[in-house]
């Protein structure tokens, strides 16, 4: 009990001491020290053996400490004990037009009835994956093929698919008028939306 009372008395004496010092300074020059009123009155430890809270020699001013002068997150004034946490809002990048037409369906993946492919929407809606021969055989008459026909009687070039020339699918024109131009930004831009471009007259 005696120890606790002694500590309280010491603390009280220290606080009184600082207040006394500050009041003496204020009386001496009230304008010079007025800006420090709030700070000093609310922080009895502002006057310490290291000069002040943010002194470079203060152990509380660790380079790594939160809100120290050198902390990149410290954004307050030198005697304001607060800080600012900087947050980065990611910028959504819109790329320029793709150079090529890329459609996963054009790669015939899932053509072997892969269940994973089907589930991912990559399966093709057509069966003939490749067409490497013309229905008009007169359109190709290389010497090698002519010789092959003579000896084998087979005019199939070895490419396995023979597609139908009437197989062009319907490509319906159904604009929803919801599209709009979009520009580029960020690291990969370089080309913007291009503004308004009109076709030559038909």
């Amino acid at each position, binding site marked *: 009990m005696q120890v606790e009372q002694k500590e309280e008395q010491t603390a009280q004496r220290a606080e009184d001491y600082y207040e006394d010092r500050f009041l003496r300074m204020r009386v001496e020059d009230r304008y010079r020290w007025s800006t420090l009123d709030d700070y000093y009155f609310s922080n009895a430890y502002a006057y310490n053996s290291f000069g002040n809270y943010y002194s470079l020699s203060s152990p509380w001013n660790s380079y790594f400490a939160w809100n120290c002068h050198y902390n990149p997150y410290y954004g307050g004034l030198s005697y304001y004990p607060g800080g600012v946490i900087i947050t980065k809002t990611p*910028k*959504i990048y819109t*790329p*320029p*037009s*793709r*150079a*090529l*037409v*890329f*459609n*996963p*369906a*054009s*790669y*015939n*993946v899932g053509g072997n009835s892969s269940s994973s492919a089907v589930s*991912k929407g*990559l399966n093709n809606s*057509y069966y003939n*994956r*490749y*067409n*490497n*021969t013309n229905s008009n055989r007169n*359109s190709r008459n290389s010497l*090698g*093929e002519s010789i092959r026909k003579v000896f084998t009687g087979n005019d199939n*070039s070895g490419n396995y698919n023979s*597609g139908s*020339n009437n*197989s*062009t699918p*319907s*490509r*319906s*024109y*159904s*604009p*929803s008028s919801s*599209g*709009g*131009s*979009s*520009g*580029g930004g*960020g*690291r*990969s831009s370089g*080309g*913007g*939306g*291009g503004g*308004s*471009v*009109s*076709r*030559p*007259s*038909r």
Partner: protein
Amino acid sequence: MSIALECFLPCCICLITDKARLMQKRYLLGFSILLSLSSIAQIPEDVLKYSWQPTNGTARVSAVGGAMGSLGGDISALFVNPAGIGFFKTGEVVLSPGYYFLKNKSDYRGTKASDDGSNFNLGASGVVGGWRGSGRWTNKAMGFAVTRTANFSNRVYYTGKNDYSSYAEQYAAQAAASGLSLDEILSNNNVSLGTRMAVYTYLIDTATLGGNVNPDVVALPTYDQLKNGGAFLVDQANSIETSGGITEIAIGYAANMDDKLYIGGSLGIPIVSYEKKSLLRETDATGINDNYFDFSEMSEKLTTKGVGLNLKLGVIVKPADLVRLGFTVHTPTWYSLEDKYQATMAVNTENYRTTPGTVTVSSEIFTNDQTPKYSYDLTTPWKFMLSGSYVLREIEDVRKQKGFLTADVEYVTYTSNRFRSAEDASTDDNYYKGLNEVVKQYYKGAFNFRVGGELKFTTIMTRLGFAYYMSPYNDKELKGSKMFISGGLGYRDAGFFVDLTYIHGIQKDVNFPYRLPDKANTFAAVKGTGGNIMLTVGIKI
């Protein structure tokens, strides 16, 4: 497509002698000819450009088929199994220039064509040095080397008649699927530049076909057929010229424990420089002059620049005096890449327009007269390699060794190629998801095999090698493979060595001039044959 010839000579037999300079190591050359035909700007075909290629070492390594995963003693080890530089107990400086030539024969819809090209090459070159170790480490070594891991210089040409599809249909399909009006397409970044150019030039337009209420998007080459039941036949020709390569810089370190165990690792920094110019021309072959289509051609130029980073870790053990076994892991290369693209389209639709004539448009009209850039990251496959060698009369005095037989089996996870946007948050994410899904299913993991041997006659060595790279395509209809047969001579004496190697490569691949999502596709079968002459000179230091 790519042809890569790699050869390599092993060497190695490094045992200890007072005269460490007799230790040999050189591997030599490898070289690679990569024909990248079909790659353009972030499409699935791009991945083979970076991962379907052989080892490019010194002339010695190239002469034994590139099978050096368990041999060591050659600077090429930095690019194959870094543990191999642990065989070095002295140092050497190596330079491996080369020259290659190739010819590509194509078959497109029954028509055959060919094109050829040639260029200089650089095999593994650099400096490596070993020093005495401490404790159980007999010696340690460090090396720094550079090599051309891919050479893109190539030319491919194919042509043929087509009565089934037009390249313009890819644009019609995308325009129809976009849900946009043609006017909106002209100013919308979600549509490819090709489609926007096709709209601008009237290569595609709308037409109400017989029996339909609503119009369709139609490719003009097929207009007369679809609208009027006319004939459709076009001549198609595609000319592709690629250049550039991948130059990899590697630094590695290895240690040798009691001449029984060698472990090592290397850090590789591949630098990519790639350019592709192509001209796809389609001409009306019906002989009809009023069917709304005369010709169209698409001229494209794509450049890719970037840099990557990879790690190679390996171990070699000698369970018996005559036997060496090796295991190597190559991490993926993490590339940061940037593409630039420019294209010009010219179209003549005969009397379709009231003002007949050819309409020409550049892609830059849609990009504010700027060249569009696409920045992205690419992660290439893992590689795992098992190797074994049998050294004929392996004794400490390498002068008395008689040669070796060596083989590598390598597995490459082509399905693990991954693209991603270079941006943290991008509207492009779905594009890359679709791309990666296709890569996973379009390709497969594949094995590569390399075997070779050397016979040594005091200062003269003779070598033979063979390498086979399996098809990375999951679809058996797509034939792809690379095969290399190599042979060479070497001379080594008094701290000087020179090796000369010839590698003959035969490669099969396919090239799609365009792809349609709603119709069967057509492709050219391309067979490339070529030779690579490689010379390696080196001195012990």
